[in-house]
């Protein structure tokens, strides 16, 4: 999706402002919001990629004007309603009014340590890798209206395969409720001038982690 979330290389957002001695959460609701989102993922309400797509689906003005955990809260509201897990009437009332849906899993206190390690997205390869280290590749000029992990600034650009990272769940598929469709994942390195033109820093190289369907051999 060519959304506002795809920020790499944009101008005008100003300086980075680090905060001295930043707390883990700036308010208690941020922690509750993080944990609620993680818990819903852990019981199988949606995949990590469907969750990311849920953030990207927020209108651009809302995306830019909401805090990080504010976006997570809006996404959670939207997704529980869209999936019939809770009604908008229930969220407005602040109490359950209807029967719950049956979920795949439960999350108890005993399961919490499991949620503190990221899920594993590596999968058995279904076919040999198409590219090898050192190959010159061109990223495809794709603009799906749905979730993708190929950022705009790196589309239609020539780079080099620096590393092969194994075969992974393909976000473009799982984000829209499709199969895991495992794909080879590569670190692809680009010169900054290839990405940003002749005025770019000549000492800079940038890499993305690119799934095989994003790539074709360089001409």
């Amino acid at each position: 999706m060519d959304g506002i979330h795809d920020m790499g290389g944009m101008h005008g957002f100003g300086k980075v402002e680090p905060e001295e001695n930043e707390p883990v959460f700036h308010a208690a609701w941020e922690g509750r919001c993080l944990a609620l989102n993680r818990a819903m993922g852990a019981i199988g309400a949606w995949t990590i990629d469907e969750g990311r797509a849920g953030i990207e689906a927020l209108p651009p003005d809302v995306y830019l004007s909401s805090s990080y955990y504010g976006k997570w809260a809006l996404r959670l509201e939207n997704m529980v309603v869209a999936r019939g897990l809770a009604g908008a009437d229930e969220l407005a009332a602040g109490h359950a009014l209807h029967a719950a849906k049956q979920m795949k899993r439960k999350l108890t206190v005993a399961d919490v340590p499991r949620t503190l390690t990221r899920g594993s997205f590596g999968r058995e390869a279904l076919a040999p890798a198409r590219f090898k280290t050192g190959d010159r590749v061109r990223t495809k000029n794709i603009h799906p209206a749905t979730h993708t992990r190929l950022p705009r600034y790196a589309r239609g650009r020539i780079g080099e395969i620096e590393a092969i990272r194994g075969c992974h769940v393909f976000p473009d598929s799982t984000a829209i409720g499709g199969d895991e469709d495992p794909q080879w994942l590569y670190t692809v390195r680009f010169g900054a001038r290839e990405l940003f033109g002749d005025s770019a820093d000549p000492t800079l190289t940038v890499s993305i982690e690119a799934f095989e369907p994003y790539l074709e051999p360089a001409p």
Partner: protein
Amino acid sequence: MAHDHEHDDDHHQHGSELSEMQLRVRALETVLAEKGYIDPAALDAMIEAHETKIGPHIGAHIVAKAWTDPAFKRALIEDATKAAQSLGLINRVGDHLIAVENTPKLHNMIVCTLCSCYPWEVLGLPPVWYKSAPYRSRAVNDPRGVLADFGVTLPAETQIRVWDSTAETRFLVLPMRPAGTEGWGEEKLAALVTRDSMIGTSLPKSPGEVA
């Protein structure tokens, strides 16, 4: 419950937008708990782990070990998930952690331009700036400008490498060991390793800063 009390504290300390978020998140939690999807006690445990157990001290321990143990450093570069796990950390480290080494010629910086991917098992939750539009937009085309925002200037000839975390691989910068730390033990060295130095937006502290 303890967190209800904290919600009320927020109400007194912050403005109306925060109060609204507080109420919305509380409504979400109440509804999802009443429907049996989530257990508030599990949320408490997750929050407590983030506030007390998981943080950049874990990454600092890994870096300090790499600075003092060449075999561990080799293992870390080879397979950071496995090497970090061998230290007996509190939580298992997820797959595909990748350590990237700074050298006198090369400086590494980590970003997630699309969202907020971050090696949180070893660094904790990302700071607000890491998730902000200024960082996500500029890291890939103006990393020297970003470094300047952190008060860091690198030599003009230093090569800069920015890693955009666009998949489930996660990156940890292995910064250079500061000069003047010869003979230091791991624990003392770990105190020099800042969170930002492991993201690549800053450098480790110098020995004089922790004296």
